[in-house]
C-alpha cells in the first residue's frame, strides 16, 4: 500500500540559500505527522512548497498526493487541488483572514470555488461548518468581520475554511502559537476531533514538543533545513537518538522538575547553521567528530525510526 503523501527529496532554495535540504517523508491516510523544529529550520517553507505557494524560490524533488505528483501539475490543475484536496491553516488567524470581507463570505467563496453549489446551498453549508467548529451564534457570526472576532474564533473560521471541501491532507502551520494557553487547548481539541472524524491526514507544524506529543502519531524533527530524526511519537520521546532531539527534549522545563537544578542546554544557536559544511548540527553537537565534516543521511536504526547522524548510538 502506498502512503497518501509521499515527499521525496524536496529541496527549496532562495538564491544560493538552501532553506530545505532534500527532505523525504510520507504521511499515511488518517495519520497525523508532527513536523517539529525551531524558527528558521524550514518547516513552514516545506509546507508552502507542498502547496506550491512559494515565489522566488526553486523547488526540486517530488511530492505525490494520492499518487498525483503535485510538482508536475500545471497551475490550473494545482489550483483546483488547493483548498480542496490539500488545505492549509496559518499561524496568525488575525492576519490570515481578509480584513474587509465578512468571514461568512470568505468561507462561501471557498465552497463555491471547488464545489458546484448555488449561493444558497453554499450559505447553508457554511452555517453547518460554523456549527461544526463550535462557533456560537453561527448565523450572526457569518456576517462578522475578522476584527469583530477573537483570535480563537478567527482560528475556528480558518479551520472551517480548511475543512470545507473535506481535504485529504491538512497542513497546519503553528495553528495555536498565537493563542492563549486555555484557547490553545480548545483549538487542539477541535482539530483532533474534526480530522479524526473525517479520517483526514494532517501535517502539524510546530515548535512545541508538548503539542506534538499529544497530537501526532509520528514525528519528524527538522534542523537547519533537514530532517534529522523521524519516528513514531512514543518512540521518539522515549528513545530519541539524534543529539539535537535529545538536547531539545532535555531543555524543556517540566512542571514537576526540581526548580533548583539548571536545565541541560544545547550550546550556541541556530544562527548561520545553513553555512556549515557537512553535518549542520556539528558545531553545537556534543558528539561531533571528524566524520561529521561530510553530511550524514537519514538511515533506519530501528523499524520506522530514522536518524541522520554518524555517531547516533
Amino acid at each position, binding site marked *: 500500500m502506498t502512503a497518501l503523501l509521499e515527499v521525496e527529496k524536496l529541496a527549496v532554495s532562495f538564491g544560493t540559500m538552501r532553506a530545505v535540504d532534500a527532505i523525504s517523508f510520507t504521511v499515511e491516510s488518517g495519520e497525523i505527522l508532527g513536523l517539529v523544529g*525551531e*524558527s528558521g529550520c524550514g518547516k513552514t517553507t516545506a509546507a508552502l512548497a507542498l502547496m506550491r505557494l512559494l515565489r522566488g524560490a526553486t523547488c526540486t524533488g517530488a511530492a505525490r498526493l494520492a499518487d498525483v505528483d503535485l510538482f508536475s501539475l500545471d497551475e490550473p490543475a494545482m489550483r483546483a487541488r488547493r483548498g480542496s484536496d490539500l488545505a492549509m491553516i496559518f499561524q496568525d488567524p488575525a492576519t490570515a483572514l481578509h480584513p474587509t470581507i465578512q468571514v461568512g463570505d470568505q468561507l462561501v467563496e471557498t465552497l463555491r470555488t471547488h464545489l458546484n453549489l448555488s449561493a444558497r446551498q453554499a450559505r447553508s453549508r457554511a452555517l453547518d461548518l460554523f456549527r461544526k467548529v463550535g462557533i456560537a451564534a453561527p448565523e450572526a457570526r457569518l456576517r462578522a468581520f475578522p476584527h469583530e472576532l*477573537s*483570535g*480563537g*474564533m478567527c482560528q475556528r473560521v480558518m479551520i472551517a475554511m480548511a475543512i470545507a471541501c473535506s481535504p485529504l491532507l491538512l497542513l497546519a502551520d503553528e495553528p495555536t502559537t498565537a493563542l*492563549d*494557553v*486555555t*484557547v*490553545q*487547548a*480548545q483549538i*487542539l*481539541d477541535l482539530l483532533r476531533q474534526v480530522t479524526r472524524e473525517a479520517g483526514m491526514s494532517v501535517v502539524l507544524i510546530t*515548535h*512545541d*514538543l*508538548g*503539542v*506534538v*506529543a*499529544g497530537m501526532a502519531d509520528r514525528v519528524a524533527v527538522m534542523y537547519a533545513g533537514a530532517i534529522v530524526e523521524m519516528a513514531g*511519537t*512514543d518512540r521518539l*520521546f*522515549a528513545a530519541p537518538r539524534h543529539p539535537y532531539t535529545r*538536547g*531539545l*527534549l532535555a*531543555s*524543556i*522545563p*517540566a*512542571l*514537576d*522538575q526540581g*526548580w533548583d537544578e*539548571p*536545565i*541541560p*542546554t*544545547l550550546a550556541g*544557536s*541556530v*544562527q548561520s547553521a545553513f553555512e556549515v559544511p557537512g553535518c549542520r548540527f556539528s558545531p553545537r553537537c556534543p558528539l561531533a567528530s571528524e566524520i561529521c565534516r561530510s553530511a550524514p543521511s537519514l538511515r533506519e536504526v530501528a523499524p520506522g525510526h530514522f536518524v541522520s547522524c554518524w555517531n547516533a548510538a
Partner: protein
Amino acid sequence: MTEKLIEAIGVTRHYKLAGGRVLRALDGVDLAIGRGATLGLVGESGSGKSTLGRVMVGLQSPTEGEIRFEGLNAAAADPAQSVRLRRQRQIVFQDPSGALNPRMTIGDTIIEHLRVQGWSRVEAREQAARVLDDCGLSASFLSAYPHEISGGQRQRAVIARAISTDPAFIVADEPVSALDVSTRAQIMNLLRDLQRTRGLTMLFISHDLSVVAHMCRDVAVMYLGRIVEIAPRGVLFKSPLHPYTAALISAIPLPDPARERTRRPILLKGEPPDPSATPKGCRFHTRCPRATDLCREVDPETRAFSSAHMAACHHPLTQAPVERTIA
C-alpha cells in the same frame, strides 16, 4: 517570612480608551516579594501581568495604591531617594530586538545606561565589560550592533544592561517568550545563576506555566487585572484552589506522549473577556465551570487557605480556608 523588599499595595492601573471606556489593566493588586526571593507571575494576554511588572519598576505609576520599596513609598520619594530607586529596580524585556537601540552598539547601550546614572565614562566602560562577561558575552560584543548578534545573545545583552546598575530587584517580563526552545533554557539558567550569585529579588513574568515553575519558588496567577491565586509552586500545581489555575495547569501540553494520552484538559468556555468590560461579580464567572449565582453577583475576596496559599474564589477546589481575610 523574610523581610519584604518590594510590595504592591492595592495597586490599580486604568487606561482611558477612546469613547470614554476605561481599561482596567490592574484592579486592586496586593503583592509582596521577600528579599532574595523569586516570584513567578502567570496569566494570559490581557491579564495585566506586564502592566504590573512595569508598575513595580516605576515605568508606569499606579492610578491608585502604592509601590513600596524597602518600606518607602516610591511615589513619595525625594530626588536622592528616586535616584537610588531607579538604580535598585531594573527590567528585562520580552523582545530583545525592541529592547536595544538598533543604532547603538551593545557597549554604548550599557555605557549610556550607566552614564545617565552619573558614572564616569571609564568606570562605565569597565562595568559594561564586566556585566557582559557575567552574562556569558566576551568583550568583543562591546562593539557589536544588535542586528549582528543572535536573539539569545541580544537577550543576554539586555540582561547585562539590567544588572549593570547592581540592582536589588529585577522584573523579567517574558524574558524567554521570543526565543527558540534551545536558547530558552540557556537564558533561564543564566537568570537563575545571576539571581543566586547576586542575591537578586525577581518578579518573573510568563504566560508559560512550565517556565515559571522552573524558575520560581512561589507563583501568582493573574486573571483580568487581579491576582486570583498565589502559592508555593509545589502546592499550586498539585492542589490548585482556583478553577482558573486548575484549567491553566491542565491546558499545558506535556512533552510526554504517555501522559498526554491520559491528560484531560479542562476546556474553559470561550476566551478571556475584554479588559475594558470586566464582568460583574467574580471576573472569572463567565468561563468558570463552577460558577453560581453568588459568583455572578459578588466579587470574591482574597482568602488565605494556608500560611502561604491564597485564592480569590467562592468555590475553591480542595480545602477550606484556615483564616479569614488577610490584610
